């Protein structure tokens, strides 16, 4: 893992097509502006992780599921 120190207004380049601009730092919050090709999907890490976790739970339960109660409601 590469760890860099940057100041507001400075950039990080990943390859030759992704640019991360450090816009501002306010207390605990760091504001980033990201330029990337359209095919590169960018997610907040916690959202993607939450979906992976939910998908794993959804996949773990199905074989014996009985929905009779729900359907007859």
């Amino acid at each position: 893992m590469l760890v860099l120190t940057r100041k507001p207004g400075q950039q990080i380049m990943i390859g030759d097509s992704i640019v991360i601009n450090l816009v501002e730092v306010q207390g605990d919050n760091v504001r980033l502006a990201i330029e990337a090709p359209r095919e590169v999907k960018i997610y907040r890490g916690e959202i993607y992780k939450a979906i992976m976790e939910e998908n794993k739970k959804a996949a773990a339960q199905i074989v014996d599921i009985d929905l009779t109660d729900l359907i007859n409601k």
Partner: protein
Amino acid sequence: MRTINTARFGEIEIEEEKIIMFPAGIPAFEEEKEFVIIPYDEESPFVFLQSLQTAELAFLMTSPFVFFPEYQFEIDDESIEALGIEKEEDLLIYALLTLPGKDIKQMTANLLAPIVINQQNHRAKQIILEKSEYKTKHLLFPVQDLAKGDE
């Protein structure tokens, strides 16, 4: 026809054109690219999304609009391109369901990341609604409805 193995349904035969392709897999299941939809039964809004590759892997899904009539979202340009979407009528939308314990009434739907299927080319994707207010867990039956049902 293709014969596949499933944990829930045993060995089944499916028509090639029923196969749904997830070119990027599903988050946490990126290697799973081919699925088929198997209805839970004739009348319910529930279906299984069964993996062709892994017999044990099946997701339970529902049409979200049956339980959440107000549900709406916008599909990002990149997904429109990836799925080759031309018109809204071609789309099938599902929400994955999770059951935390044994009580079926606790079942939740993931409205934050719907499954979008383009019926024209059978390509599909789980879309993440980054900017929406939706969550990974929405109770199918809100608590007040359940209380009424028990009376």
